[in-house]
């Protein structure tokens, strides 16, 4: 187990370093940041250019610059955002809670909806309910997130006016006060559902097939023969075993949700890291993009790492590989 964990952490670190190298390297490949940052009035003034270069440490060798970048990245220090004129670190710290909230809500919805539906459609195989679930799964995997989001806004926010269409309400930071909770949840429902949709579909299919397999096993039949009620057999005997792979998948999709949220955050104007990333991309705001991508990437790698290690505990076959 220790070897497995060490190896897995090593792999994670390697990917992280590769990511940082690509992020840092691409700035240098595609242009000279010092020249890009020159004010138009000083465009032909080489002394200003040199001073700028020195100020940003761009006159040092590549490897030294990369090392400095890494050291700063650990502290989330990515320099000043070009457009917001304040440290990227500050923006990140504001945005990270929003994205994490959304990802958690998305995962809760994905598992909370996907698992029961999958189990029920396995138990009620080939009934109308099973067919409806199947259609929902097919739709969920094919419909573009941005479109589903807009349609839901039209119906729930525009036509019925039940839910807010945009933003996070008056929420900021990590923890809401008691009075903020209803408002926060109302703002979370639509974006979290859209984020979860494709994963609900995948989890449903996974839970259904795992459940069908388990329902066919001897110990489930034995429990039935023993005269136990259907409810106990299904939820206590069968579901518990069927859900191990499903939960793992849920964990991995949490990692994906931390990033898959770019589109969702844009449509719902959700003030998270994904929206920050797109704002940066559209305005050539390199520090902001670097910060957002490094944070999302690191979060993704870390979550995947934790899930893999937990999975290694749950299923010894994984560690043997």
């Amino acid at each position: 187990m220790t070897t497995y964990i060490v190896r897995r952490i090593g792999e994670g670190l390697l990917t992280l370093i590769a990511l940082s190298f690509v992020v840092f390297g691409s700035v240098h490949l595609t242009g000279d940041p010092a020249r890009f940052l020159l004010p138009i009035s000083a465009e032909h003034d080489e002394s200003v250019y040199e001073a700028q270069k020195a100020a940003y440490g761009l006159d040092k060798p590549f490897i030294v610059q990369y090392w400095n970048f890494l050291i700063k990245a650990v502290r989330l220090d990515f320099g000043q955002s070009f457009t917001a004129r304040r440290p990227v670190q500050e923006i990140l710290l504001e945005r990270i809670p929003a994205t994490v909230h959304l990802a958690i809500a998305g995962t809760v919805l994905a598992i909370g909806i996907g698992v029961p539906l999958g189990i029920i459609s396995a138990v009620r195989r080939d009934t109308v309910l099973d067919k409806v679930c199947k259609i929902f799964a097919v739709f969920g995997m094919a419909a573009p997130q941005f479109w589903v989001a807009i349609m839901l806004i039209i119906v729930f926010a525009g036509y019925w006016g039940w839910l807010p269409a945009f933003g996070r309400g008056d929420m900021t930071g990590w923890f809401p006060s008691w009075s903020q909770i209803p408002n926060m949840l109302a703002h979370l429902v639509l974006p979290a559902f859209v984020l979860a949709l494709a994963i609900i579909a995948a989890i449903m299919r996974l839970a259904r097939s795992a459940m069908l397999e388990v329902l066919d096993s001897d110990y489930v039949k034995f429990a039935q023969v023993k005269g136990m009620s259907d409810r106990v057999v299904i939820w206590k005997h069968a579901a518990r075993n069927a859900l191990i792979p499903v939960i793992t998948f849920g964990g991995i999709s949490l990692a994906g949700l931390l990033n898959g949220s770019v589109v969702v955050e844009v449509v719902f104007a959700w003030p998270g890291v994904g929206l920050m990333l797109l704002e940066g991309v559209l305005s050539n705001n390199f520090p902001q993009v670097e910060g957002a991508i490094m944070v999302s990437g690191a979060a993704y790698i870390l979550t995947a790492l934790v899930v893999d290690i937990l999975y290694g505990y749950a299923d010894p076959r994984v560690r043997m590989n």
Partner: protein
Amino acid sequence: MAAETPALVLEERAPVSMAQRIKDARLPWVPIAILLIIIFCAAFANLVAPHDPRANDVRNKLQPPFASSEHVLGTDRLGKDMLSRLIFGARTMLQVTAPSMIVAILAGTIVGLVSGYSGRWADSVLMRITDAVLGFPSILVALLIVTYLGTGVWNVMIAIAATQWARFARMIRGEVLAIRDRDFVVLAQIYGVSPGMIVWRHLFPNVINTLMVLTSVSVGQVILLEASLSFLGLGLAPGDPAWGILVAEGREFLTQAWWIALFPGLVITVVVMAFNFFGDWLRDYLDPRLRRAG
């Protein structure tokens, strides 16, 4: 024993007619029909579309759908005909996804073949890179690429290719590992056939099935990725007939003109569904291990 005889019976049967074979294949007719319609629309967009997709007609702006025979699916804020824009959107979709898919497939196949057959350090290095690409959500990699190369169709195509090749490389490598020690490959080696020739004549033909299945399963994902990038404003210019852009434009008229966003998204969903169904069918059909289950 009785269960294993059908294989023998099959050989004794008279040659099956083409019509019978098509019937036995249980082709997914609805998805195929949808895909054919889309391809037809893309190829003959100028003939099929009732209007010029870029022609403004401000007097008829924001017309609701099904109200006039002139604009069956309504018009947008500048009076552009929605149906025509959707039809030309099919062309745009194919123009962007097809070349990037081809590049991704070629690159992925080459990496997979080389990595699987050569083994050792080349395999380790290539697979580390592949895993790193696979390890990140496509949209993130695509955004990174578009940031540094700038927005535009070409860069979106590069971004799509750059994120999709890895899946092909991984799959193909796995297939190659499974067949590289089989007798016909070993005999070819003993006979002195060059490695390049072994890969091309002996390994490549054996991975074509996998390649076809993976392609048809991936197309849906690629269409969604392309649509998302267009929607985010990273691809074609606003006003161009791309499905993702149409939805983005509809976003500005949520309450006044729901149809601008509704129809393009519906088309994307239906097309992706059709590709997914077709891909599932092809996998079941080409993979004998799964065929009996279907």
